[in-house]
C-alpha cells in the first residue's frame, strides 16, 4: 500500500495538429506544461521532481530534455526520463504516481510529448523492425521482399484486426462505427487533432482500403502534441483543486516480444490480438485498487486504440466484458458519451496520436472526466472510477491505471 495517497491536481495539453512548424520541440512542450501549471495554480518552484518521456526515433533527438527542459521549469530540479515506445506516456504517468507514492517527492510534474513533424514517422517505427530485419538478412531473406511488404504499425495492426475479428465476430461495420464514434467525440474536444463532427459509419466505409480490413478512416493521424500532468499527495491536491482525481493504482505488464515478422505482422511467435499482458496488467491494477468487479465498478474507459478494432479488443482485454462481447456492447450504445460505460470520450488515439504523449492523454482524460472538466464532451453519468490504458512495444507492452473520485481505502 502506497505511503502517500496520490492524486492528479492538474492537466495541461498543447494544441494537437499534424505540423507545428512555428515552435521547436521544447516550445511545443512548454504549451502543455504552462497550461498544467496554470490549471493546478502552481509554479515551477513548487515542483519537487519532473518525469518526462517521448519516443525519440520520431524527432531524431536523443534525450531532448537535455536542451529543452529549461522551457519546462526543470532548471536545477530532479528529472527522470522514462521511455517505453507507444506506452511511454502511460509509463511517464506511472512514474509520476510512483514518485509521489514513494514518499520521496510531494509534487511531481509528468510530461510526455511527440513532435512527429520533425521527422519521418514510418521511418521511426520501422526502426522497431530493423534489428529483426538484421536477423532475417542473416537467414537469407531478400531485403526487397521486406521492403515490398512494408512494416510499421499498420503492418502489425492489420494482422491483429483480422485475428480479433475472427475470434470476436467483430465486422468491418463495427470498425466504421468505432471510427465514427471517436471522431464525433473528438469534435467536442478542443485538444483533439482530427475533428469530424457528424461523421457517419457509412462515410468511414467509403475511405480508402489500406490493407484489409483497415481503411484510412480506421487509422490514427500523426500528431504534434504534448501533455503534462501534475501528480501530488491527496492532501495537497485537496488544497489545490475542488475535486482531485485520485490514482488508485497503476500496473504494467510486458509479454514475450513478437518478432516483427517478414510482413511486419508481429505474428511470428504470438497472436497480436491475444494481449495477455493487458489482461494481467488490468487484473493487477484492479486488485491494487480494491476493485472486485470492474464491469460494475468502472464508469469510463480510455483504451489506447490507434486503430478502430483496438477500442473493442482492449475493452475486452481490460476485463470490462467477456471476450467477443465488445462489438455487441458497441451496438447497444453503451460506449457513447451518454452510455453506461463511455469509451474514448476524448476521441481516442484514433483521432489524436502524438505517440509519446498518447498513453498519458488516456490517463489525463480519465482524470479530467473525474474532475468534471471536460466541457462539451463531459460524459453524462457521474464518473467515480475510470481505467486508462496504453499499448506498444513489439505488440507486447501494456500499461493500465485506475483513477477515482475518492482515495484508495
Amino acid at each position, binding site marked *: 500500500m502506497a*505511503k502517500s495517497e496520490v492524486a492528479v491536481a492538474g492537466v495541461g495539453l498543447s494544441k494537437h495538429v499534424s505540423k507545428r512548424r512555428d515552435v521547436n520541440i521544447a516550445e511545443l512542450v512548454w504549451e502543455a506544461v504552462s497550461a498544467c501549471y496554470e490549471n493546478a495554480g502552481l509554479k515551477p518552484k513548487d515542483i519537487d521532481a519532473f518525469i518526462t518521456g517521448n*519516443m525519440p526515433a520520431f524527432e531524431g533527438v*536523443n534525450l531532448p530534455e537535455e536542451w529543452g*527542459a529549461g522551457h519546462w521549469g526543470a532548471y536545477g530540479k530532479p528529472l527522470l526520463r522514462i521511455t517505453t515506445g507507444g506506452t511511454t506516456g502511460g509509463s511517464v504517468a506511472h512514474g509520476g504516481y510512483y514518485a509521489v507514492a*514513494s514518499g520521496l517527492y510531494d509534487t511531481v510534474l509528468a510530461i510526455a510529448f511527440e513532435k512527429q513533424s520533425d521527422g519521418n514517422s514510418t521511418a521511426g517505427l520501422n526502426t522497431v523492425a530493423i534489428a529483426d530485419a538484421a536477423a532475417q538478412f542473416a537467414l537469407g531473406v531478400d531485403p526487397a521482399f521486406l521492403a515490398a511488404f512494408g512494416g510499421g504499425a499498420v503492418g502489425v495492426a492489420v494482422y491483429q484486426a483480422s485475428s480479433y475479428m475472427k475470434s470476436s465476430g467483430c465486422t468491418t461495420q463495427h470498425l466504421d462505427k468505432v471510427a465514427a464514434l471517436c471522431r464525433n467525440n473528438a469534435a467536442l474536444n478542443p485538444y483533439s487533432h482530427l475533428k469530424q463532427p457528424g461523421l457517419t459509419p457509412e462515410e468511414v466505409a467509403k475511405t480508402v482500403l489500406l490493407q484489409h480490413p483497415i481503411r484510412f478512416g480506421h487509422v490514427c493521424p500523426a500528431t504534434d502534441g504534448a501533455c503534462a500532468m501534475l501528480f501530488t499527495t491527496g492532501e495537497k491536491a485537496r488544497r489545490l483543486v475542488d475535486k482531485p482525481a485520485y490514482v488508485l493504482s497503476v500496473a504494467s*505488464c*510486458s509479454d514475450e*516480444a513478437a518478432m516483427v515478422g517478414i510482413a511486419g505482422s508481429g505474428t511470428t511467435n504470438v497472436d497480436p490480438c491475444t494481449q495477455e499482458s493487458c489482461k494481467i496488467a488490468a487484473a*493487477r491494477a484492479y486488485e491494487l485498487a480494491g476493485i472486485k468487479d470492474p464491469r460494475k465498478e468502472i464508469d469510463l474507459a480510455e483504451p489506447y486504440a490507434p486503430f478502430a478494432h483496438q477500442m473493442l479488443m482492449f475493452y475486452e482485454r481490460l476485463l470490462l466484458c467477456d471476450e467477443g462481447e465488445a462489438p455487441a456492447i458497441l451496438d447497444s450504445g453503451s460506449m457513447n458519451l451518454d452510455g453506461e460505460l463511455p469509451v474514448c470520450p476524448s476521441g481516442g488515439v484514433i483521432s489524436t496520436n502524438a505517440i509519446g504523449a498518447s498513453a498519458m492523454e488516456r490517463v489525463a482524460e480519465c482524470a479530467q472526466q473525474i474532475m468534471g472538466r471536460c466541457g462539451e464532451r463531459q460524459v453524462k453519468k457521474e464518473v467515480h472510477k475510470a481505467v486508462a490504458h496504453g499499448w506498444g512495444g513489439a505488440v507486447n*507492452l501494456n500499461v493500465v491505471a485506475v483513477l477515482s473520485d475518492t482515495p484508495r481505502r
Partner: protein
Amino acid sequence: MDKEVAIIGYAQTPYEADAEASREMQVLEVTKAALAAAGLKREQLDTVITANNDYLDGRTISNMRLVEPSGAWQKNESKVEMDGAYAALYALMRILSGDHGIAMVVGESQASVYGGYIPGTMMLDPTFDRQRGLLNEVSASALQARAYMNACGVSEEQLAGVAAKNLANAAKNPLALRADGKADVKKVLSSRLLYSPIRELMASPLCDGACAVVLASGKVAAKSGNPVWIKGVGFSHDSYLSERSLAEMSSLKDAARRCYAMAGIEDPASQLDLAEVHECFAHEELMAYEALGLCAAGEGGAFFDSGTTSMDGSLPVNASGGALAANVACAAGLARIIEAAMQIRGEAGDHQVKGVRTAVAHGQTGICAQENIIYVLGGE
C-alpha cells in the same frame, strides 16, 4: 532512509571493447547471476527496470527485446532512458510505494553496435549546435575541462594523475577494460591528444557490457544474507551546456545536498569511507570531489595531490578504476553502485579497501555531466 530498501544481489559482465555475446545474452547473464546472488528465483521478482537508450541500441523501444533476458516476462516492467543508476532510483520509488517488494535493475549497452560518439551529438540543441558540427561529448568536455582548470588552477598533470590512479586501480579489477598497473602521469600525457586538454587516456573508453542489481524492501532484505542499505539518494538536472557555468558541477552539488540530507551525512569527508564516481573524463573526478563536498570548492586539484583519494588514502575514490577503466553507457553509474556495495560487503577481491562501512556512488547522464545522481550506501 533507514533500512527501507537494500541491495541484495548484483552482477556485472566483464567490460569488453567488442563482446562476443549479444546484448540480450549479456543481460541474461547478469540477470541470472544477480538473482542467484540474491538467492531468488525469477518468479519472485515484482518489477524490472532496465536502463538503455534507443540510439545506443540502434532501434526504438530498446527495452522491448529485453523483456525475456531481464526476467521481465509477464511482469511489471519499465525502462529509464538514462544511466542505470537512475533505473535503480525508479526501482527504489516502486519499492517505497509499497506496491512492489523485489526489483531487478539492469543497465546495458554495446558500443561495438552503436556509432561511437554519434549518439552523443544527438543530445545537442537540434536548432543550432547539433547542426554546426563542432561539439560532441569529447570536445564539449574539453571545453568544460579548460573552464574548470582555469577557474580552479588545475594543471594537465593533475588530470593525468587522476587517469593514472584509476588505470592503476583498474589493474586489480578483473572486469575492467582499460587497466595499467604501471600507468603514470607521463604515460597519460603522451597518449593521443584529442581535444586539448583531453587525451585518450583521460577519456573513458566506450565499451560493451551489462550489470544488474536486485533491490528489495526492508522486510525481504532483512532475511537476506548481507544487505547493503540505501541510506540516501539525490538527483538533479542542470542547464544546457552553453547556458551554465561549465566550471562547476552544480547539479551534482544539488544532488549531493539532497542525498546527504536524507542519509544524515553532515561531514562527507569524515563520514564516508569510499566513493565510486562516474567520471567520463579525468577532470570530472576532480570536479566531483568538490561537488560531493569531499573538499572545499576549488580545491579538487590539491585534494587529489594530498593522496586522500588513492587506494591507501583515507577516502579512496574509484578503487575499481571508475569509468576511465570502462564506461558502458547506461550501465557505468549502476556499476558504481555495485562497486560501492562490493566494498561494503568486503567482496571486492584484489581492489578491496579495508573497513568500508559507508560509501557514496555516483551516476551521470548527458553531455558535460548535465544530470547527476548519487547514493549513500551502508552496511548493517
